[in-house]
């Protein structure tokens, strides 16, 4: 940050920051966490608003809404968007989430077969035992526990059944928003990067 050009950080007008926020928030809801990095620009303004209010018990409730003391913490919006990024951050997890659009419950073996078919571009009947096992192992040891951690799915150990969990809806909504459709080009969508979608 040793740039000798441009205004110092603290001279960036609030209007500019708000504008950037609005633009980013329009394309990527929940992205405001990145604004928080330079949120010190906004902080004094928010604080002064807060101090202007009399510490009346009635008004305290409304003041809390606009300027909570822990304003630097990630907003609830951000916390809810994180499972989306984590869930879709690997192609096999994207494949897995696509299958959840089709059905909300899967056996691990069926999932492995389906994903292996997509990856190798063959029909499910043509998937070899080796291909299936390789996917199965990576699902069992890496991707399924990751998605369980993120609250996207639950995994029942004895039956090896996968079902959707509390964060599945927002992940699947994001997938659909990226142009997912079950009957065409699933592999293309699953492989494409998230940042390809600009608008």
């Amino acid at each position, binding site marked *: 940050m040793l740039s000798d050009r441009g205004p110092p950080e603290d001279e960036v007008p609030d209007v500019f920051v708000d504008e950037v926020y609005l633009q980013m928030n329009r394309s990527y809801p929940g992205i405001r966490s990145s604004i928080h990095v330079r949120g010190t620009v906004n902080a004094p303004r928010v604080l002064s608003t807060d101090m202007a209010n009399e510490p009346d018990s009635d008004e305290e409730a409304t003041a809390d809404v606009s300027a909570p003391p822990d304003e630097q913490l990630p907003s609830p919006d951000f916390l809810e968007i994180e499972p989306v990024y984590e869930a879709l951050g690997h*192609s096999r997890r994207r494949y897995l989430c696509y299958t959840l659009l089709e059905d909300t419950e899967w056996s691990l073996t069926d999932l492995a077969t389906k994903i292996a078919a997509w990856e190798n571009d063959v029909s499910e009947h043509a998937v070899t035992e080796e291909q299936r096992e*390789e996917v199965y192992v*990576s699902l069992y*040891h*890496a991707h399924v526990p990751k998605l369980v951690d993120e609250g996207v799915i639950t995994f029942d150990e004895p039956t090896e059944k996968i079902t959707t969990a509390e964060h599945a809806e927002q992940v699947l909504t994001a997938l659909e928003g990226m142009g997912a459709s079950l009957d065409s080009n699933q592999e293309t969508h699953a492989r494409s990067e998230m940042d390809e979608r600009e608008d």
Partner: protein
Amino acid sequence: MSEKTNGGSESDDEPTSGADAHWSQVAQRHYEPDGRGKLTTAIVYAIAEAEDVSPSEVKSPPLYETVDVPAIEDAFFGPNVSDTSRQGVGTVEFRYTDYLVKVRSDGWVQVYESAEPAQV
């Protein structure tokens, strides 16, 4: 030679972990970094070979709960790691059930078992 940390020995033939345990290598597998996150399967396949079972029979616990495999993959085999620097001797070792697993920066995944109990 230059680095000795945490009981990790440089000698390939007689690796030790801790002062008292004696380990012998029972399986190894070479991992080819392809940027597709296959280190997990490489490790599980090596453990399966050590246990003499098929990889899908290696069950509990999931490797995910044992070690952060993507972190190892990033550190040793990430896109910014050049081939020449991987010729060094970086090693991550961890326990999986009764085994000691080593992941080396040259791509070798090695599984050791304790030589103490007479396991034939």
